[in-house]
């Protein structure tokens, strides 16, 4: 069982510790809409060869992970071309303007030991700019943790996966909005494992409108959070302290040299009868730190 160098993806951005055997993903480049090129390197190896690499892919930094490569010897890149985007949504595609994909590389060696790392599909930066991004990310993380932020769980919606056998129609739509198997998404479970972090939300009034259905409430708020995980429309934010859940409507990423630093979201509070309240998260989870 490999010992992870980090519990969360953003620990990967911490400065590497000298003398520690580790693996680092140096490049993830998308060749839209067909392929993704992934490249990695081992740091501080005691042996020049004999390293075995396994590569995994997921829609969330917390998994679950799909295996792409298993124990390949002395391989330092992978051209992930498994993006067929089939009609049954069993595999991912690269057609969305905001598709987040995470790669995990695990290296094992009989003498060097084992290490792993995670990186999402994003642009790469030179060393100096990478340092600036890391500084801004850390400042944002400190501000959220020490100041205005509270603990949140981020549920990223699945857009591909195992079809729901309970309620999925032949054309792929869920016929039960409150299906316990897929939570109305048509894909088993419907959401990736939760990622925990910090976020702050603005104070705005709850609007009540009279519609056919009677009085209908809506509550739109703005949320600031780190760029990890990168969220998309329909993802869910769970504020752990009050268990209020919000659905993401819009995402405004703050970027430096095309790399995200933090995200500003327009979210809407979910009605208490929404299925998303049935998805389990750990209310006592203390998000990981740098």
């Amino acid at each position, binding site marked *: 069982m490999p010992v992870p160098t980090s519990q969360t993806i953003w620990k990967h951005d911490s400065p590497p510790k000298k003398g520690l055997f580790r693996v680092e993903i140096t490049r993830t480049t998308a060749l839209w809409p067909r392929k993704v090129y992934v490249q990695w390197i081992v740091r501080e190896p005691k042996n020049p060869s004999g390293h075995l690499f396994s590569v995994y892919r997921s829609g969330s930094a917390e998994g679950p992970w799909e295996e792409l490569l298993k124990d390949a010897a002395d391989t330092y890149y992978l051209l992930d071309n498994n993006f067929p985007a089939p009609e049954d949504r069993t595999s991912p595609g690269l057609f969305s303007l905001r598709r987040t994909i995470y790669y995990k590389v695990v290296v094992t060696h009989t003498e060097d030991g084992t290490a792993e790392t995670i990186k999402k599909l994003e642009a790469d930066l030179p060393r100096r700019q990478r340092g600036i991004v890391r500084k801004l990310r850390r400042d944002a993380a400190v501000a959220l943790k020490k100041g205005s932020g509270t603990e949140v769980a981020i549920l990223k919606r699945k857009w591909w996966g195992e079809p729901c056998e*309970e309620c999925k129609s032949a054309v792929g*739509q*869920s016929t039960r*909005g409150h*299906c316990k198997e897929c939570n*109305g998404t*048509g894909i088993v479970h419907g959401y990736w494992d939760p990622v925990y972090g910090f976020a702050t939300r603005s104070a705005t009034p709850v609007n009540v409108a009279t*519609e056919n*259905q*009677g009085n209908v409430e809506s509550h739109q708020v703005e949320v600031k959070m780190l760029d990890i995980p990168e969220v998309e429309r329909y993802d869910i934010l769970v504020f752990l302290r009050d268990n209020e859940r919000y659905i993401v409507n819009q995402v405004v990423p703050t970027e430096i040299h095309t790399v995200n630093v933090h995200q500003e979201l327009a979210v809407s509070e979910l009605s208490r009868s929404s299925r998303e309240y049935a998805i389990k998260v750990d209310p006592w989870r203390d998000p990981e730190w740098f």
Partner: protein
Amino acid sequence: MSIRTNQNWRGNALPRLQDEGPDVFPGSPLAVIGLWVFALRERFKHNVAYPLPWMWEHELRPDEQEDSHPDGHPRKIHIESAYNTEKPVRNYRPYIVVGKGGGSTTADKVSVNNFVGRNQYTGKKAYHCYATMPMLLECGAESSGASSTIGDTVFDFVLATREIFRTDFGLHEITSPVMSDTIPKEDDKEIWITNVQFQVQYDKRWATEPIAPVLREIGLAIRGRQNVSQTFVDIALRDGDD
């Protein structure tokens, strides 16, 4: 059909829903809407023989074991009349709201000036027409598939029961339903709507009476009485011999 009505009602051809509010008279749009609210609640009540993934219950709080499974713990469905803001439920899904929609209620003539008869002695005139009322059943759910499936169920229910409704509840005509496309709208989140529409036609009867003959009758009644005040009371309360 186990919708309870006042079968002894004789003031109109239409029956009166039991426990209906005193201000709602039979044949009014609110009464017709109530008819389908109760009917749809009956249709979506839990039935072991014909289970559905949705179940209507008086209490909407979701079951702890809710799994949306017809044979397990179905999702409760909210069935209500449109624009009922007195209810405490907010943004509940799935739902069916029953209301007037897709047009206006019209009074359609079937004879010249709606006139059907006249009493020569009193001068009372009787009139009749058909009122046509559009009905809109809005089927909302959190997924397009669920909204579409609930819409299908409602559509088939209206289609299959229209003759029973027409005869049992004294309605003149119920048109075949029309089902809309399933389209999204934004509330707190994206909600999918399927509308089922049809028209209900029912009898409208009324009479007018000239005021002069009425006054003459009152005058005659008063002249023959010793206690004039009591006569007025009797006329007002309609419990005197005259």
